[in-house]
């Protein structure tokens, strides 16, 4: 019995993103980073990254500036809450929809 044949005979799941789909659609508020206040963005130094650390979904990069993957960000606001510089603002998703329109 080959691996795939066998895998189909039982619950054999393979790793991949988006098991729950694009979880960005769960979001009501969108975290937006103010690069003028964000410590690494402002100082151009690898520093802080509390948003990266505490993000439950691992969808913020440890880069200058940090980038949020809105496809998957569930909008929990932990990043905004934990940002020591208050650089992350939560914005109503509806505003972006209006803008797109």
């Amino acid at each position, binding site marked *: 019995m080959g691996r795939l044949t066998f895998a189909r005979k039982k*619950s054999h799941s393979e*790793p991949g993103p988006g098991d729950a789909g694009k979880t960005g659609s769960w979001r009501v508020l969108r975290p937006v980073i103010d690069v003028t206040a964000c410590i690494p963005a402002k100082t151009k130094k690898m520093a802080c990254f509390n948003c990266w650390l505490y993000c439950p979904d691992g969808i913020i990069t440890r880069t200058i500036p940090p980038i949020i993957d809105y496809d998957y960000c569930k909008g929990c606001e932990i990043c905004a809450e934990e940002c020591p510089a208050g650089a992350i603002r939560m914005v109503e998703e509806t505003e972006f929809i209006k803008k797109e329109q």
Partner: protein
Amino acid sequence: MYVIESGNVAAANGVKLARAQVIAAYPITPQTPLTEKLSEFVDAGEMQAEYIPVESEHSALAVCIAASSAGARTFTATSANGLLYMNEQVHWAAGARLPIVMCVVNRGIGAPWTIWNDHQDSISQRDAGWIQLYACDHQQIIDMVIQAFYLAEQVSIPVMVCYDGYLLSHTYMPFDIPEARAVDRFLPPFKPAYALDPCRPANLNTVTLPDIRPDIRGDLAPGYMEIRHNLHTDLRQAIGQVAEIDERFKDTFGRGGFPHIEPYCCDDADVIAVCLGSLSYQLRDVVDILRQEGLKAGVCGLRLYRPFPDEVVRDALAKAKGIVVFEKALSYGNQGALCGDIKAALYQCGSRPFVRNYIVGLGGRDIRTVDLLAAFRDACTAPAHKTDALEWIGLKL
């Protein structure tokens, strides 16, 4: 090599010859001497295996499930309430398609406590998706254990090798221990299609939706129902594989020829007794007596109970005028489970034999040959007034 030993020791030697790699077990009468023997083999270095002294039967099967998922040949054994304590794991092992071999040393189940033989324990697990084999003597136990590993690994379905507590487990009989080299030729090392591996990660036994769903490549993967359908289909196919394996075994070891059922004097029989386990051998003596009396009696022991070899059973039984099912278990409030299966198998026949159902030997009640003889003779000589009603042998009300 011929030895005179107990049925439990026969089973232990089968496991040793099969080179089981992980053994987990918890003591329960009458299974205990089997795993004691295995721990002795491992301790003495006669067997290269991990012997895990677990803290419960539930964990015994958990160890086997996990070890098998990680690519090891695994074995456990239990009896009665131990098997029931495993119940959840029994079903799990089948759904996870793991080729675990487990000896069930048949014992009645509580309450009230009994340590003696009947078949209620393994019969209660008949719908779990395992293959169930029943042995009649020590030679069958050791041969069956070796074949069970091969069968389990061929079809990725766990196998229960059931044998009667005390009657076989603790009784000494002569049997042949096959040569290790011959067994190695018969049973190659376990090579699973997939084993847990950090280089090829997979998440096994995850929640599975009622409906089908695309996988990461976009191909549709089965839903729960398809996975379960696969198990059923593969179990049905295993009936044929049991026969092939029996033939292979016979070629190597010279024993076999009865993969599904073991009929005795059935060809011209008017009335055939059907049963599981060592009882079918005891009934051979009864058949001999009835034949001396001029009655065309026969007995058909089932070695394979799940998957149920209904076509084979039909072929063997359909020509008879009557069938007498002797059972050491029953579906309380209905009839013997085996009897129900036999009736279902015969339902399609044009002229169906009558089917009588006798319950015997629950909780180790002595099964006296004279009692069997009386019941069987009664079925042979006065079939006209036979009904479907369940009858009990040896009951002292």
